[in-house]
């Protein structure tokens, strides 16, 4: 499994620029880690339900009522770029 691990492809999926040195270093380290997690294949999990989390709750609802929330000014207070009460981003549509 580890042999077809393509770090450049995965980094692209993760929207993460890696340097050539990082690609080389992580590639080798992750091959070791992937080799280790192959261990799970030793187990027969036929008929076992997956556990997504360990909390005994389903469908936690609250009343559909308006509640206080952050003001526009506060929500934008950590923005790297803002104008007219909005986040500024690079052009998306030509």
């Amino acid at each position, binding site marked *: 499994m580890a042999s077809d691990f393509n770090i450049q492809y995965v980094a692209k999926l993760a*929207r993460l*620029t890696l340097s050539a040195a990082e690609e080389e270093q992580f590639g080798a380290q992750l091959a*070791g*880690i992937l080799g280790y997690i192959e261990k*799970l294949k*030793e187990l027969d*999990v036929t008929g076992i339900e997956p556990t997504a989390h360990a909390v005994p709750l389903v469908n*936690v609802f609250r009343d559909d009522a308006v509640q206080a929330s952050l003001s526009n000014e506060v929500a934008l207070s950590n923005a790297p770029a803002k104008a007219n009460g909005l986040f500024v*981003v*690079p052009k998306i549509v030509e």
Partner: protein
Amino acid sequence: MLHQLTTWQLADKLARREVSARQVTQACLDQIGRVDGRLHAFLSCDAGDALAQADAADKRLAAGANDRPLLGVPIAIKDVIAVRGQPLRCGSKILGQFISPYSATVVEKLQAAGAVVFGRLNMDEFAMGSSTENSAFGPTRNPWDTARIPGGSSGGSAAAVAGDECFAALGSDTGGSIRQPAALCGCVGLKPTYGRVSRYGLVAFASSLDQIGPFAKDVRDAALVLGAISGADLRDSTSVPQPVPDYAAALNGDIKGLKLGLAKEYMIGGMDPEVSAAVQTAVKQFENLGAEIVEISLPHTEFAVAAYYIIATAEASANLARFDGIRYGARVEGADPTELYCKTRGAGFGAEVKRRIILGTYVLSSGYYDAFYLRAQKVRTLIRRDFLEAFEKVDAIVTPTSPTAAFKVGEKSGDPLQMYLSDIFTISCNLAGICGMSLPCGFTQNPKLPIGLQLLGKPFGEETILRLGHAYEQSTSWHKEKPPLGV
């Protein structure tokens, strides 16, 4: 020495007005001035804000109000939990100069209990690590030997409490990040049951595993802080509406007849013999105190680390997608949004975070989801089942917290897999969603480094592990030893 008191001793002195909140807050700030240049537990500390909170507490005390259990007690916060108006960086460069616009529920609860909430404590970036060496702002040092790591990821919280820089602290625990540093620094650290404490305002790492919990100087202090932060919260739909007991009332010293499990799968190779010996001696002490030792089996233990590193990295890769340079934090400009995301994340995240995002993205990617992520979730079911079956026979399980005492800075940082394997005793607790606590059970000889004992409890069984831990602690003197930091 004021700063060396425990929280319950301090609360008593404050209530009797023998000391003021300002004096004790100043004593913490002075201790930070004396030792934090060597420890680097704090990333920042707003002294003016802390003293203003202390003065407000003193006003309440002067008015005769002592209805708040932590009134005037200085408590410091891991840099992954939001405190309104204070920096929040998660030990990372990617958050830039972020200032929290709101407070976490646990912070509001501490403040409602009267605590002076102050300081930002160092951590492995985004809580990913076991040594605090992954902080973008440099490692924290172990108060017992500053050439060594304090454990992680909540290394700053553990070092600050062990170094008497605060009376208690909050940390977060996804695979041992409270218990392991508590063990390595010689204090008490408790990971509550999944759902016991609200995570609103905690920056998410792996949402199905993360819990916030206390670091404290002794078990009674841990019980006090746990009681203050526990309870259901409408803002966290995973918090469970289970009543919050009076945890301190559970500390009655009576553990006669309680059944304590020893898992044969935890007798692993690679254990430091001094750690093994200390844990065995502690088990005998529990027996002397009237507990019954029962051998149990947790047959899927050897698969826990592999399952954990699939589930935790998968969830992290999704949770950390929000750090994209658009709404907050640092930004590296790009010609289009995708280039902006890639460059921002490439420049902002450190090596361990990148490694885990890559691994998590891979195990969730098309064609591998069933083989890795879904399989790991099924193994998680088996691990949880192991614990629930064991808890039909025993009231709690006793283990070492970490296979070794603190290692040297730089000793393991080049080998991530070795670092991951050292989490063997703490990881299963998060996968199973149960509670766990580490407390001091001895020291290695040369050098003298703390050894931690772990008690694992049933879901919402915090009272039982606190009672056991307290009875043990009060029959020993490990928790009274202080690290050699000078005066």
